[in-house]
């Protein structure tokens, strides 16, 4: 098991290098001179050239990337922001907890809603509850985060004044964004749980459990659930990544000072080191979560654990 985890972690490295290369390339070909962006509208050409040279932007692509990759992968040095000259790593680390909390609360909300509703829906297939739950789930998936955020602000902040509309300092601040970001995931998890549960309920071993004289509730909770959870766990893992991405929009709507907002601003400002660092951070987090999901599998499903040797 440990060896397996070790190997998986080693395998992360090439993925991250790939991620950094792609992002670097994208940002490199992105039109717009970071120097010009930084200096603002009233800068002169001479100043821009001067800054370009200072930033090392005149070096060939491969030299620039090489320099970056070397610093990141050998010394965990993400460099300094073009815009603020602050250490990218520090900037990310201070914002990371915010984004992670946002995504994690979102996932938590999603799991707390999604799994129970999914189970009930599956066990009461085609009932009123099932139909209603599926409709809501679909609506949840269909509602764009940013729209939902706006509507939530409109209703709960502007209209009712229950929650603050921006920032992320107190638990009160977290409620609307977390719900906003969690809804679509809740919907996904509900649907996944339901269909996985329906699949499992048809299996022979469920029939076996019933044939033992087991109570229906226990058949569901003891036999079906654990088996049904396996694909759901993947979805939860994927949702986490999706939410990390979704944070970009949600943080914009709610002015939350997380990595997502930072990314959007940095991309706009062509703050290449910051974008690089941020995407790498998110990719790393996402990969680690996926690794966690895989390990979790082992605990849920002994068949998979056997393969981890």
């Amino acid at each position: 098991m440990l060896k397996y985890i070790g190997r998986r972690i080693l395998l992360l490295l090439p993925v991250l290098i790939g991620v950094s290369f792609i992002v670097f390339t994208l940002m490199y070909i992105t039109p717009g001179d970071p120097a010009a962006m930084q200096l603002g509208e009233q800068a002169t050409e001479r100043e821009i050239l001067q800054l370009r040279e200072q930033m090392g932007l005149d070096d060939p692509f491969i030299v620039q990337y090489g320099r970056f990759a070397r610093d990141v992968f050998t010394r965990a040095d993400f460099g300094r922001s073009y815009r603020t000259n602050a250490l990218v790593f520090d900037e990310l680390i201070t914002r990371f907890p915010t984004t992670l909390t946002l995504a994690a609360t979102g996932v938590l909300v999603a799991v707390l809603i999604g799994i129970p509703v999914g189970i009930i829906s599956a066990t009461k297939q085609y009932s009123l509850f099932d139909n209603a739950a599926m409709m809501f789930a679909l609506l949840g998936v269909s509602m764009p985060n940013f729209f939902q955020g706006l509507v939530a602000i409109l209703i709960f902040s502007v209209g009712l004044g229950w929650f603050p509309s921006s920032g992320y300092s107190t638990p009160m601040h977290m409620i609307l964004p977390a719900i906003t970001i969690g809804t679509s995931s809740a919907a996904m998890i509900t649907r996944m749980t339901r269909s996985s549960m329906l699949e499992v309920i048809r299996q022979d071993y469920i029939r076996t459990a019933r044939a033992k004289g087991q109570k229906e509730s226990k058949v569901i909770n003891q036999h079906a659930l654990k088996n049904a959870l396996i694909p759901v766990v993947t979805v939860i893992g994927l949702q986490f990544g999706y939410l990390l991405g979704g944070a970009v929009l949600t943080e914009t709507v709610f002015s939350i000072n997380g990595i997502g907002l930072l990314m959007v601003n940095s991309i706009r400002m062509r703050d290449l080191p910051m974008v690089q660092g941020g995407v790498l951070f998110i990719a790393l987090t996402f990969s680690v979560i996926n690794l966690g999901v895989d390990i979790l599998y082992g605990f849920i499903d002994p068949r998979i654990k056997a393969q981890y040797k």
Partner: protein
Amino acid sequence: IGCGDEAATDTLVVAQGADADSLDPHATNDQPSSRVMKQVYESLLNQNEDMELVPGLAEEWEQIDELTFEFKLREGVMFHNGEELTASDVEFTLLRALESPDVGHIVGAIDPDGFEIIDDYTIRISTVEPFAPLLAHLAHTASSILNQTAVEEHGDDYGENPVGTGPYMLEDWTRGATIELTRFEDFHGENGKMENITFRNIQEDGNRTIELETGEIDIAYDILPTDISRIEENQELELARDLNFSTVYLGFNTEKEPFDDVRVRQAINYAVNVESIIDSVMEGSGEVATGPIGPMVWGANEELEPYGHDIEKAKELMEEAGYEDGFSTTIWTNDNQLRQDIAQITQSQLEEIGIDVEIEVLEWGAYLDGTAAGDHDMFILGWVTVTGDPDYGLYALFHSEQFGSAGNRTFWGDERVDELLDEARRSAEPDVREDAYMEVQEIVRDEAPWLFLNTGEDRTGLRSNVSGFRNHPAGHHPLWDVTIEN
């Protein structure tokens, strides 16, 4: 921890739309940073809200010759790190500023070899050429005086560890969220009124208003035009509206047909209903611009007659110019909501005189390159006369030596204007300068290389219990005298 109401009154919370990039005056020139730095640093001179030069770190100054000024520094001025300000800090600071791509142009007139330290409190600064606006430039936040020891000690991280002589010093900075300043008790002048000032970054413009309404913040900068009435009608709030140094214009590429014809340019000035643009896009904020610089800038010509909205006149001029059937052209703009909105309205209004406009939204770098190279037809830009001196607002934009990236993207030049601008830049006589600038503005108005749009304003929302705040036309407002009443 005991952060009750009592403590709250000791802290002034100010919100703006972005975090400061850096608190190193030489590393950035953006407004959010300047607004913070204004509280932390001082310059040799200050410009008050009425744009008069008043003593800052320099108690007095005099012009020695055409090129040289001598400054007498205040004695006993302490930096936040406990060191005393001396003339060498001034030389060090300005030399460092000269090197900076971000603010170099502000002090660019200074001769790097032209510093002369007479004693610890006396320094002479020379320019390469005669440069009348030097004092105004030295009053800019980019010319804030830094402490040499602190700069050298922190190196690359100086931007997060600023050391100035101002009434407030940096206590804590959560990147992207808040900057907390605390009173510098050894300030040489009258101490700041509030114990702490917190700058909050609230990027979403509407949210600043909301939080001002809920009382989470005391001062909100850059209130949306759409929120003006909301604040004005609210008993608990006040709105400070004052014109500032900014101008928005739509430029013509006068090297290209048909904009090489002054009649076409004038026709467009007549055809566009600027007032309606200001009303719809900017909710009537600011004023219709009548010339290239707004009334807050010293030497602004307030006698200029606005073109006004006159379709008939416009059509006449078009006909005279031989464009009775109009023509097709483009408006360039960058990814800026306001400018895109302006472009859209202009587009639909120009249809009336037969001009068929296509809007091209360019990415900022491409926009700059294209307009510098003269690939454009019409374009929308803004300009802030940061020093409050007309030289800054006119020279780069209308001098024929400044074509392209240097600032004159209309490629419009006029010998008389060149002459006047040069003269005003050199002259030490304010009257001579003023006369020259008046004439320049008249010519520019008549020749219309721009469609004059709008002089901007600062809109600062205040809780009613906040007193002592005044907008500074440069956009960075000193908060030393602000108090909150209970």
